[in-house]
């Protein structure tokens, strides 16, 4: 180990970029920064390019991305129902249909539509897999799959990342 090598746990050294000198490191406690647009296309990291203004704080929103790990790519038409818990029951808010690729055309909720509390997204998996012609038992193991999650801070962006197949699913708070 050379004297300049970082110690374990030490902060990662800043990349030695000429034009970027004098840039302050981004604070670690800000709200999540803007991500790629819903099309999924990478932006090329414009936010990191020197000389560009810092990314403004993003509007809170709820977005979803559901990936069919059975097919390897999500076909268009996966139906999602969004509900919000009130007085112990989930009240339906809106119904969406995911595009090919597994995202919705628009965020499910934007700005002050996103509230603190408990939400549920129901995935209509049996309908989806029947639609793409998957050969499954009848009735299939998974049909309408409820994914419940809590929004503790409505000022933050919330992205629900979902992986699903006819036999399993995962979801997590993505970014």
């Amino acid at each position, binding site marked *: 180990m050379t004297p300049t090598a970082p110690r374990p746990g030490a902060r990662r050294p800043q990349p030695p970029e000429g034009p970027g000198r004098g840039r302050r490191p981004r604070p670690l406690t800000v709200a999540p920064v803007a991500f790629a647009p819903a099309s999924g296309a990478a932006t090329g990291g414009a936010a990191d390019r020197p000389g560009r203004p810092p990314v403004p704080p993003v509007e809170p929103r709820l977005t979803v991305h559901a990936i069919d790990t059975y097919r390897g790519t999500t076909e268009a038409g996966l139906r999602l129902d969004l509900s919000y818990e009130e007085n112990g029951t989930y009240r339906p808010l809106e119904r969406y249909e995911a595009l090919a690729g597994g995202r919705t055309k628009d965020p499910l909720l934007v700005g002050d539509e996103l509230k603190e509390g*408990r939400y549920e997204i129901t995935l209509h998996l049996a309908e989806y897999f029947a639609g793409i012609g998957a050969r499954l038992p*009848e009735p299939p193991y998974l049909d309408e799959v409820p994914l*419940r999650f809590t929004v503790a801070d409505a000022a933050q962006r919330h992205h629900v990342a979902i992986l699903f197949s006819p036999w*399993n699913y*995962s979801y997590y708070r993505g970014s």
Partner: protein
Amino acid sequence: MAGISTHVLDVAHGRPGAGMRIDFSVLDDGAYRLVRTLRTNQEGRTDEPVLKPEEAKAGKYELLFHVGEYYAGLRGGRPAAQFVERVPVRFTVFDVTQHFHVPLLCTPSSCTTYRGS
């Protein structure tokens, strides 16, 4: 062996999810009716089967995992809003001669379930 079993793994800590409450329900006339409440043992399994082979019937079932309460317990009971709190896993027993093992892998902000064996 037919019937239903489960197993909870706390993958945030790399150990079994011990002491987690699970409500087991069956879909009956369009609503989930509680059959029994279970609690995971030190291995993250239940001492008794969720559903014994002789009780197995084709139908729709729900295992409601109290993940938020489990992590609150690890924090000495202090509640903290986390992304994943109560996790209902709804599945269909389509063949009573088959066994249905329904595990849950969880963290405070994610969970995974699959048909195991």
